[in-house]
């Protein structure tokens, strides 16, 4: 286990280094002056020079990269050019919208998908199975941001059960959770569809296994055998997909936050883009990529804990 952990940690570090190099390259190395881009066409030579000095553009690229990475390691994400406050402060507030949203969506997606997948597998070939598979096929094809708009149309415009957007803050947890509900549902549905299909096929796979036959021979009904022995094994592929989905939910949240005007990391990135605040864009992107890579790492570790076979590879 120690060796496995060390190898995974090494690959985590490598991924992060490459990710930071790519982001740095896209923003700062490839031709074009970031300062000129940020200030637009009407910038004077003086303001350009001042911003270049601000950004440290006069120094060598290697120095700048090291300063950026070193800063992030100590929690210094740079100063936002438009807000004039540390990016770390901007991020801290918004994290409390983006992370709960992703977690909420993950819980919803899992809570919907697992029972639905199990029902479909248990009634393979029946009308219920075909209905479920058809519905999941449809849900996979729905862009989550459009589904979000339909939810707004139905629950905010027509029924007026929810507000169409905005976030009241965590002072009133009930209101906060309520305002995250429509976004979380919009994020969760396409993911739940994928997960339900994975659950179904993983469970069907176990039905042909010897241990199920043994359990049946010992007198368990088909349902009991599947629930007691099949489900545990079927959960392995399901867990992988859940892990992958969390990273997708973090990224997918960027778009959904825009539909509902939620003050999360996604809004921050887009504000950074429209205001040409490359410092914000660069650091927040790195943070998102870090979150995604870290989750993948944790899933790998969780996996190895559950399934000893993986440690030996």
């Amino acid at each position, binding site marked *: 286990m120690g060796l496995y952990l060390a190898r995974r940690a090494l*690959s985590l570090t*490598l*991924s992060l280094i*490459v*990710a930071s190099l*790519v*982001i740095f390259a*896209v*923003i700062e190395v*490839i031709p*074009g002056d970031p300062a000129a*881009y940020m200030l637009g066409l009407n910038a004077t030579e003086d303001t350009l020079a001042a911003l270049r000095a601000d950004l440290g553009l006069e120094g060598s690229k290697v120095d700048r990269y090291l300063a950026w990475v070193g800063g992030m390691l100590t929690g210094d994400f740079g100063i936002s050019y438009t807000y004039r406050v540390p990016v770390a402060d901007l991020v801290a507030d918004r994290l409390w919208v983006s992370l709960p949203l992703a977690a909420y969506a993950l819980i919803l997606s899992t809570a919907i998908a697992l029972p639905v997948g199990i029902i479909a597998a248990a009634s393979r070939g029946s009308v219920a199975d075909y209905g479920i598979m058809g519905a999941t*096929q*449809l849900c*996979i*094809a*729905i*862009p989550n*941001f*459009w589904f979000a*708009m*339909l939810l*707004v*149309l139905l629950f905010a*415009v027509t029924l007026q059960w929810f507000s*169409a957007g905005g976030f009241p803050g965590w002072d009133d947890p009930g209101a906060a959770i309520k305002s995250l509900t429509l976004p979380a549902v919009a994020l969760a549905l396409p993911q739940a569809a*994928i997960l339900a*299909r*994975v659950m179904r*096929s993983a469970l*069907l*796979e176990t039905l042909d296994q010897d241990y199920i036959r043994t359990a049946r021979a010992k007198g368990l009904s088909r349902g009991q055998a599947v629930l007691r022995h099949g489900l545990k094994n079927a959960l392995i592929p399901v867990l992988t997909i859940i892990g992958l989905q969390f*990273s*997708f939910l*973090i*990224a*997918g949240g*960027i*778009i959904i936050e*825009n*539909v509902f005007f939620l003050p999360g990391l996604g809004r921050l*990135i*887009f504000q*950074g*883009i429209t205001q040409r605040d*490359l410092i914000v*864009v660069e650091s927040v*992107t790195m943070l*998102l*990529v870090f979150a*995604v*890579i870290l989750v*993948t790492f944790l899933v790998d570790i969780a996996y190895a804990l559950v399934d000893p076979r993986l440690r030996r590879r």
Partner: protein
Amino acid sequence: MRRLPTALLIGGAISAAFALLALVSLVWTPHDVATLTIANRLQPPSPAHPLGTDQFGRDLLSMLMVGSQTSIAVAVVAVGIGLIIGVPLGLAAAARRGSLLDEVIMRGNDLIFAFPSLVIAILITARYGPSATNAILAIGIFNIPVFARVARGSALPLWTLDYVMAARTAGKGAARISAEHILPNIANLLIVQATIQFSLGILAEAALSYVGLGAQPPVPSWGRMLAEAQTMIYTAPMLAVLPGLAIVLLVLGLNLMGDGLRDALDPRLRRGRV
């Protein structure tokens, strides 16, 4: 001949219908989408405008038809990038299994996979300006590892087969064997994967256009039509519904076609599919 899977027929028909619409719209649309007739704005469906008009008086059906060009073109080129770069990489990795080349290609793939594609797409379009070309690049880059992986995975078992051995004895090099003997045998899988990536490309393009990072005005695109409709969701809900339906229908058609193709081309995969 074996009966074609129903999914393939339905999916193929939907996809072909959209392709046809896009092609027709190149030469003809019911109305010109470049002319704005404010007097005609937000008309309900009528014989002249079967789906009604938008906030600038443009015919919605025509807009949707022209919008399909953008979606399809972006997705096609993005899949093309994945195929043209990814497949040779995958074949090369399979031909030199376990070599440094193989390691480098596969680790590079892992890294791209670890990135949230949407975030990088946003990064690219943020730095180089929003445009259809940048959207294509951003989506296409993430198709490369997908095709490399499929090509490598399906080519590996073929290298142990007798006919490949025979070709080697006949003095053919790895590149020639890959092109002449391996590629034709993995083409089925690549076609199925291309269909899947195509539908993912449509969704990605819609998302990028929706947040304003895809095709720019005046080029109509489904994603941007949705973004514009959102501001008028109280007054003209249909504007928010129709472009979304178009996306869902096309993606559904492509997914069904992909499933159907997989069944038709490789019956072994029929079981245990997700």
